[in-house]
């Protein structure tokens, strides 16, 4: 799928995250997290996996994470993508 417009999903509550996706040439992922030091590579891997699953190859993805588990990262990214153009 393609990111056609800006889409946002999630909250800033504990165990959640806020995901913003925007149209862009090329793919970039920006991660801000309360557990960035320990888990950035795992968060990034989960984001990349979810993007690949939905065939997203370009866009600016930024997240602000409050210690979300994998299922929530996947779900919030999917919701943001859906809002940004339809999965």
């Amino acid at each position: 799928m393609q990111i056609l417009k800006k889409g946002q999903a999630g909250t800033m509550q504990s165990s959640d995250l806020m995901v913003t996706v925007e149209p862009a040439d090329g793919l970039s992922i920006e991660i801000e997290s309360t557990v960035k030091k320990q888990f950035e590579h795992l968060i990034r891997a989960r984001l990349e996996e979810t993007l690949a699953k939905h065939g997203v190859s370009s866009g600016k993805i930024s997240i602000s994470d409050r210690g979300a588990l994998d299922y929530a990262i996947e779900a919030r990214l999917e919701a943001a993508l859906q809002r940004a153009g339809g999965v």
Partner: protein
Amino acid sequence: MADYKLRRSLLYVPGNMPSMLQNIPLFQCDAVQIDLEDAVPLSEKDAARILVRRFLDNYKNRNKEILVRINGLDTKWALDDLKTVLPAIPDGIRLPKADSPEIVEHLDTMLTEYEEELGLQVGFFKILPSIETAEGVLNAPKTAKASTRLIGLAFGAEDYTATMEINRTKTGEELFNARMNVLWGAKAAGIQAIDSIFADVNDMESLRKETELIKKLGFTGKCMINPRQIDIIHDVFAPKQEEVDYALEVIEAIKRAREMGTGVISLKGKMIDRPVVVRAARVLNTARAHGMVDVVINEEDINGTE
């Protein structure tokens, strides 16, 4: 009766809060009802159902019954709720505003289609309808027989009092007739009867009183909005040791009576006949579900043989 499933405590969990969802495995209740309806704001309906789907996909070793409260079938969200959540295989659907048997039949038909698509046995997904309007209460006896998927009828006092244009009180006099109609409907259909939530999480004494009342009336379980309410509800629903001991004595007494060729006998000055035995059997089956006794009470124990 031996496989009677305990549903004493059904906890609502908001569908759009990861911090609550991921505690579901830890809650000590018999069932959870993940809520996509009233606990989710209109702007988050889409995101909540995706979150619930991914949570359930990852919750493999389930240790309690999982129901999902979808939005009412008269809303634009209900179909997407089902489509998104059912592939994660919840045990059933809590159906709000089940005002008529037709609404339950409609959901039944849709669930059959999803079962065929997902390769599940038809009838796998259960339904727990909410009886929460004046019309719903009037139709409760018919609604209770609308589908073989029903595990019970659930009374929703908050919405019911709203449709009646009255206030809900802690003593609940205003709910008696509605509760009884829900109970009669459920009992006549042979399904469970689940009572409404108690909204004040700081008033444990009134929660206990209300739970004692609804147990006395015949409800088999109660909904909750806070895990702090679980212990009191379980405590009220647990059979008391003296009830269990007495029920065992009743079963022994009726066996002795039948050996003597009669269907009635005196136990400590009280008459024991079939209705007393039926009640004792119910106590023992509940006690068995609580792990208090091992005995399995069968039809022969209740009725004897020809």
